[in-house]
């Protein structure tokens, strides 16, 4: 008797292939994301009035030093907030990672709590904190460290502080996810080889949490440079960032093609940063199975 003669069991076929299963989402995204993006990009190549193809909007953006300042200020804000989130977020994530189960429950709640509140509410909270009679100024004056209240509201520093607090949870969560994937036996191995706490951290834990750091930085940077509510409320119209510029041009001044061009520039800036960080991330792929 030969095994080859036996009928092979028929594998039950899914009615749809995996590609087909993704169709509804693909259709949705095409309709409400891809097409609007194409329309936006097309609009950026139009003159202010009438039809035709022109690079005038981009030329106008890059020749006006005020616009360049907005671009660099936005990039600077993104960089500052990302670095601040990393500096403040990593210790929290590390503490969470080392904590006992009970502490983890408490910490999870504390980390997620801000995310459950709307950004508008949190921004108004910061208006109260940063104001002339606000928490920070009252405290500093009360302690006698300054004589006059310092100006925090409507300043770049104020915006950066508020944004750091608002996006911090995303950085913390990304790093926690990455830390929890590290095999605890690696730290034990390092210790058994004579690696102290610091060596273990710098040589093992930190490099292996790099994927989480990178994704956290990507999220925070992209969300910061495209934030509208917080910069416009804390910045109070005196400080202009890319999203507020887009709003002013597109909604207030009704200069749609110029607003579209500014949007495209912002998009390209984000894409460049995403590309740079992903390239860095690629280097870590080698050892992540």
């Amino acid at each position, binding site marked *: 008797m030969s095994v080859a003669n036996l009928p092979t069991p028929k594998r039950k076929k899914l009615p749809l292939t995996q590609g087909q299963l993704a169709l509804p989402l693909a259709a949705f995204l095409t309709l409400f994301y891809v097409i609007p993006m194409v329309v936006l990009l097309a609009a950026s190549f139009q003159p202010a009035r009438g039809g035709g193809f022109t690079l005038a909007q981009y030329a106008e953006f890059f020749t006006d030093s005020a616009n360049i300042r907005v671009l660099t200020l936005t990039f600077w804000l993104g960089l500052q907030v990302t670095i601040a989130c990393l500096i403040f977020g990593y210790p929290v994530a590390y503490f969470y990672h080392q904590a006992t189960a009970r502490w983890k429950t408490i910490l999870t709640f504390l980390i997620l709590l801000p995310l459950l509140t709307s950004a508008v509410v949190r921004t108004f909270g910061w208006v109260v904190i940063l104001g002339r009679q606000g928490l920070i100024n009252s405290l500093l004056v009360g302690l006698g460290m300054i004589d006059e209240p310092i100006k925090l509201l409507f300043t770049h520093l104020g915006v950066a502080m508020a944004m750091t607090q608002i996006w911090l949870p995303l950085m913390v969560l990304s790093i926690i996810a990455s830390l929890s994937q590290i095999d605890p036996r690696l730290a034990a191995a*390092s210790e058994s080889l004579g690696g102290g706490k610091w060596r273990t951290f710098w040589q093992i834990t930190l490099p292996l949490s790099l994927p989480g750091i990178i994704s956290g930085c990507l999220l925070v940077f992209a969300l910061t440079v495209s934030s509208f509510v917080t910069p416009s409320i804390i910045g109070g119209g005196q400080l202009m960032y890319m999203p507020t510029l887009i709003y002013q041009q597109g909604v207030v001044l009704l200069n749609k093609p110029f607003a579209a061009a500014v949007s495209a520039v912002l998009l390209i800036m984000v894409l460049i940063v995403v590309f740079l960080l992903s390239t860095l991330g690629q280097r870590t792929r080698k050892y992540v199975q």
Partner: protein
Amino acid sequence: MNSVKPLSTVDRLQAQAADHAGHSLKLDQIMHRFGEMVALRDINLDIQPGEFVSLLGPSGCGKTTVLRIISGFIEQTAGKVLIDNQSVAGLTASQRGVGIVFQNYALFPHMTVWDNVAYGLRAKGLSRGRVSNKVGEMLELVQLGHLAKRYPSELSGGQQQRVAISRALAVEPKLMLLDEPFSALDKNLRLDMQIEIRRLLDEQGVTAILVTHDQEEAMSMSDRIALLLDGEIHQFASPSQVYDHPATLFVSSFVGTCNHLSSQIVGRESGAYVVKVHGGGQVKVAHESSLAPNAEVLFAIRPENLRVETHPGPYRIPGIVEICIPLGATITYEVSIAPDKAIKVTQQRIAGARSLQKGEQVYLEPVSPSACTLFPTSS
């Protein structure tokens, strides 16, 4: 003509090993509690310099806890760990001179093979040149010099294990702890690695402790085996001693295959006990400790320690062949001696010789009366 032959790496390491001829380990009345649960009670082990000892037991018996106490990852509730007769309380694994090979090897995935092996040497603060020499030497020892620039994920399981062992050996530990290091390897490779690791450790003269639940592994690699069940050591002896003279019923049933027959002592004859097996027949068993006359016992006998006879005798157990399983070199029969009681019997298989048939009447006799054990049953 007088030429000096350069020493090979292996020769040189052997000479080194002879210099520091291993280190002893003593566990003195170790007790450990996790909360209310007593994980280990009264663990005493005296391990000689250069000895290879296995901690064998089923999962949850506490063997990993013993390992973690030796390495200093957890502090025992009571008792002492002594290396070279010095208490190592409060010291870390590296201060104790304990090297560990982990179950999944725990290689640093973001470092090359070279950097993995160099890690401990750099942590010690060795100069660049000395690190480089030692790493080269270690990689040559495990024949991985050509893979120094690879990452662990680019290596096979056996290669990863060699990296793990050379990384642990590089810092010249006094003790080497091996935590189920072969469980991730497939069966053929496992035997090769067992031989290779045993050879490496012997060359280095390192005292080694292997934690395993695989009795074959423990039997083939160890000088002595400590059998652990429910946080207690049941026996600490050589593999053959453990196999031939199990100290407790657990050891007897855990190591190898063994028949356990409920029986009764019915007499003494020329230094041996006459044991009546419930279900039929009686046998003579040489047993060291004294047992009360008429005591109820469990008579333990290995399948290969039974001889099949075709004629009845005064000290034979009658039975009927039920199942016959040829296993290549040997053949195993299941012989029923009572309606609900069967004995396994293993015989050498001689090519061409007639094997017993199902339903055949046979009479079983112990080959060696001293390689049987009697366990008193408290009834």
